[in-house]
């Protein structure tokens, strides 16, 4: 159970929970990031913030402060399903 902000570039994680009260999380859900989904921290911006995360076939930028509130299970070697809609 770690915050997304602590993932290292290249690491995968499985989303355990979001906080739908916050607009950022609502946005992410509308983009398809739902509990149980695997995501990957692609990189951090050259200045350290924001982060680029990949899920469901898209790459999205997210700030460090926002990523702190997103909880995931680190899954070291679980590759992102080359997104099938069913995944």
């Amino acid at each position, binding site marked *: 159970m770690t915050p997304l902000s602590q993932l290292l570039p290249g690491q995968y994680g499985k989303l355990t929970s*979001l906080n*739908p*009260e*916050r*607009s*950022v999380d*609502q*946005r*992410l*859900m*509308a*983009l*398809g990031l*739902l509990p149980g989904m695997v995501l990957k921290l*692609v*990189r951090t*911006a*050259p*200045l*350290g*913030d*924001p982060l*680029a995360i*990949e899920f*469901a*076939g*898209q*790459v*999205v*930028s*997210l*700030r460090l*402060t*926002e990523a702190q509130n997103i909880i995931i299970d680190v899954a070291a070697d679980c590759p992102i399903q*080359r*997104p*099938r*809609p*069913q995944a």
Partner: protein
Amino acid sequence: MSAAEPGLTVALVGNPNTGKSTLFNALTGLRQRVGNYPGVTVARKSGQCDCGDGTKVELIDLPGLYSLSAASPDEQVVIDALSGHLAEDRRPDAVVVVIDATNLLRNLFLASQLSELDIPVVLVLNQADVATEQGLKIDTELLSRRLGGVPVVLSSAWKGEGISAVRRAIGEALRARVRMPAVEWPALVEEALADVATGVATDIGRAPGRADVERLLFDSTTSVGQRLGWASARRDVVIRAARDKVRRAGYNPLAAEPLIHYARLRKLLEGVVQGGGDRTGGSAAVDQVLLHRFLGPVLFLGIMLGFFGSVFWLAKFPMEWIQAGVDWTKTVVAPPLDAYPMLQSLLADGIIGGVGAFLVFLPQILILFLFIGILEDSGYMARAAFIMDRLFSWCGLNGKSFVPLLSGFACAIPSLLSTRTIEDPKARLATAFVVPFMSCSARFPVYALMCAAFIAPGWQPVVMIGMHCVGLLFAVPTAFVLTRLVLKVKPQPFVLELPRYQMPKPRDVLWRMWQNAAEFVSKAGTVIFAITIIVWALSYFPRDAAVAERVKAANPSVAEAVVTAKIQAAYVEQSYMGRFGKAIQPAFDPLGFDWKITVGVLASFPAREVIVSTLGVTYSVGEGAKADSQHLRQAMKDAKWQEGPRVGKPIFSLAAVLSLMVFFALCSQCGPTIATLAQETGGWKWAAASFVYMTALAWIVSALLYQTVIRLS
């Protein structure tokens, strides 16, 4: 665009970066018109489209969005347009959802939400060529069947493939009128929705639409309640109770919508898509370089530098052609009018000289827009926002401010309007206040003129970039102070998609460039033209013959040509413009401005580009309406102080040139911008503050610069 148009309307929606506009261009064949939605920045793009069977529909291109729960007024406009809540527009008769074929699931979320709007739908799976490249096979028939007959079409808009299929599908949708199948909500959720509907109906006496009910229940903030006129006290009670029901169904009410929609979409898509390799691979590889820790910012700077450099040297030849054309026109127009010096001067010096000086910069403006268009279409813009976001958040803003601020380099007015995409009013105000610091394209001609005339070729790109940076240099602390100390803005959330890199489509980019060019030329032909005439008149009159006599008397033994030149110079000084300029000039003397420059700066209030035409007029008029009048540049190079402590020295010393450019970069001198700022901030307080602050800042910095440089050289 009138509300009474009897024809059919079809709206185009979809996620951003799906090639929607390319499809729009392909369907309308560039028979487009752009209008306004009041209150928001998004332009109303509409065009005529043939449905292949003879029916013509009006196609409306709505801005991209991810979900019907709007986060900003700009997104709200899309929803209002679709539900027919806009004052001037009827509900569309059908909706075309443009979908990225390589990412069906997410793109279909919006389409799935459209079921609540009860409107016929067409699904266009665009970018099908990319999907094929990735090895994806999509069974459109199956999908269409599962959706109850909604037409599903593959297309590749930029290749021009599938367009006729889209046309036919639109025609079919208008005839068969198949909607997106409704979502099957869990029983308790369905009850909750019914409760809200009843609540609204009892309180306002009207049954609300399905879409409105869903927004009220599922969105944490929505303007629907207000629009319906539902008193907030009652509203909160009903909605809270309804949301409790949703919780009992096992869903967080604010998460229910995406959870349930996506669950159904997954089932819908089972077996529809097969194959498919790495979706983000290609772009990821490019990003390894462009977003690299060290390479990234370096390349970003390099790209910006390279751009400004190429604007300069790519535009050089076209500029010379235009200049030659302008000069040629003068030689043609002037001689026949020798008998009518006043008219001759109006035409040659005033109109041709003034407008010509402005038109000459058309090539540079074109290349500027071309470049920005390429940046946007390729997907690099999002990367730039990604890199810069840290800086923005330090100033209390977020990357959302990047596009408005960047577009400020083109023109401040649409940039100010585009701040409407920023949700927080304080962040919006801060961004709007900072926008005028972005050197707008109207200042370009001034920099270009000064650089071309006075800066060595090798240094020109550096100075050009430098001037744009001057604005940035002061924008950052201004933003910081404003957001942290004055307004105390809360940190903004920031979620931005980094889209797949795409080759910018030449047709789209060039079309936009053409539109910009047309606008530039028409602005030259109209506003600048009119202002130039006024400026000419103010510089020409009054023409008192006594002045000529005085000059002749004071120079009895000087050559004819020199005396003529002196007479011309005296005439200009005596003109209304000259007198005004000389009166004001002492205030600008510490900046190294002579009265002609001062007048140019002040005359540019209605439109910044006017300074170039004004200088064109005052220098042209001053040296006489000769048929072979020199270029403005040469005239400025030769200009010397006629009196005062610097008499005999060139006016346009390096110090003065830099000081003028910096003044222009920093001062808030554009009337329309200030008016727009007043409009966007809901009052004159901030607009006035901006004007005073920026003008004072410009004056101080320019004065310091001039005084320092003149001592060093």
